[in-house]
């Protein structure tokens, strides 16, 4: 049985890319909620029933070829920091870490299936870059393979879920976007409000709740019924493209009319990353956000962008604690974080004329 540490160490590529478009877009994700017809939903089932459900779900997943060589983690046998690291890695949700049963993850970390989260099964596929259409093909096949005719489904209202907000397609399609331009220009709230009005949810993704550390936002569909999976994907891709255009405009504007301001910010961030001795999580996200922006403006070599994205995950508390026993202490973590970032940026130079 693999440990969480071995599982995280194995991550060769950062989720693997699915789309060409990585400017502004970090990753795309689709999640499907599925339930077994003849069992209570996890919140209403007792422990014995939940165990029963988990056994049925696991036997389904054991036969799934997309999970070949993957790992199962039993949530109740994980340490708190291991659960946290899996959360940070987008493999599980906070809900699952609090009260779920199991998670199955593929070796490439592109697929995870949560058992007894809010629903019996939460299937999720994740890739770098923009690529919801390709992800729908992948997850659609997985869904078909798992369907033994025992899913809770009704022809009139679709897949039945514990919460009516997921009923119908049971699908949440989301794109994770890096929007420093809109944040600096103070247009982000306006953008979020406008998207909310058209059935699109926007949330901060790093850190707790809806706070947006590192200027990273997750854009996803609000409705799951009344539109098809294709409708949802087309809508979210369209919205993401529109937001991208606004972000481009904001960036151009900032680099044109506030050139000294933004270049100074980037150079200082680079300086801190290169020579800090300790740095907190929230501050490092802000610094890395500026480095990602710089890489997309040709100020840093673009080849380092994947590394930047990766460190945004790996310098978080759970990851640090999985990789070192000493990291249980916050001040030690800050020093470790600084060391990792110092090393990474030591041979990355800034080029400005």
């Amino acid at each position, binding site marked *: 049985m693999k440990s969480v540490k071995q599982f995280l160490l194995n991550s060769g590529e950062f989720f693997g890319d699915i789309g060409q478009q990585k400017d502004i877009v970090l990753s795309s994700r689709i999640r499907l909620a599925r339930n077994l017809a003849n069992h209570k939903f996890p919140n209403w089932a007792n422990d014995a029933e939940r165990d029963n459900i988990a056994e049925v779900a696991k036997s389904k997943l054991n036969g799934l070829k997309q999970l070949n060589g993957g790992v199962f983690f039993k949530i109740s046998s994980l340490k708190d920091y291991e659960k946290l690291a899996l959360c940070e890695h987008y493999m599980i949700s906070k809900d699952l870490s609090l009260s779920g049963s199991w998670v199955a993850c593929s070796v490439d970390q592109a697929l995870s299936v949560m058992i007894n989260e809010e629903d019996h099964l939460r299937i999720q596929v994740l890739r770098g870059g923009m690529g919801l259409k390709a992800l729908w093909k992948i997850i659609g096949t997985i869904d078909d393979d798992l369907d033994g005719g025992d899913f809770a489904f009704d022809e009139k209202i679709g897949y039945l879920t514990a919460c009516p907000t997921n009923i119908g397609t049971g699908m949440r399609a989301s794109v994770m976007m890096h929007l420093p331009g809109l944040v600096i220009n103070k247009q982000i709230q306006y953008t979020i409000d406008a998207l909310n009005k058209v059935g699109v949810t926007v949330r901060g993704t790093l850190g707790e709740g809806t706070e947006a550390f590192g200027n990273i936002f997750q854009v996803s569909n609000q409705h799951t019924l009344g539109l098809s999976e294709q*409708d949802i994907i087309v809508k979210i891709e369209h919205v993401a493209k529109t937001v991208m255009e606004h972000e481009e405009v904001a960036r151009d504007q900032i680099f044109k009319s506030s050139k000294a301001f933004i270049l100074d910010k980037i150079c200082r961030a680079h300086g801190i990353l290169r020579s800090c001795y300790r740095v907190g999580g929230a501050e490092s996200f802000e610094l890395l956000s500026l480095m990602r922006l710089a890489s997309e403006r040709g100020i840093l070599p673009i080849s380092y962008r994947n590394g930047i994205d990766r460190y945004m995950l790996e310098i978080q508390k759970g990851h640090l604690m999985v990789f070192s026993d000493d990291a249980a202490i916050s001040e030690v973590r800050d020093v470790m974080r600084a060391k990792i970032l110092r090393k990474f940026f030591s041979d990355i130079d800034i080029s400005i004329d």
Partner: protein
Amino acid sequence: MNCKCHFCGKPAAVHVTQVINDSMQNVYLCSNCAQKHGMFDPDSSHLSILKNISGALVSKMQAFSFSPILSCSKCGFSLADYKETGLVGCSACYLEMYDFMIKTIENLQKSTEYLGKVPSNMNYKSLNHNGKADLRESLEEALRVAIDEERYEDAARIRDRLRASFG
């Protein structure tokens, strides 16, 4: 009358206009629900409706008009439980408490019409259509009729559904 009943979603037969908190609300009821709520006698109608929606938005009306004792015979989950957690107890709850759930879904979702994929597995006994082939045929027929009748919005929706289910 072209509107749906606020309680159950069936075509409405009765229409009441109501002013609540300075805004005008339209309430539609089917003949069945109208009878249930004492609407058949035109004189008592306004009073009983008022009682049901006093101070509340029409969209929240179902909260006042369903008994919290209403429960699912399969899992024992009740409406009172739903109001506490926002989750239901089992998949049968949706059918057992259909009127309430469909109203709730109407408020939360784009519509109550399922337009997503048809499960690849043919074993779904709950399907009204006997498996995929029949569904495809009936959708194709509906598409033809919609085009004939120049209901292009409907036609587009049916076409999307065909694409979603059969590629």
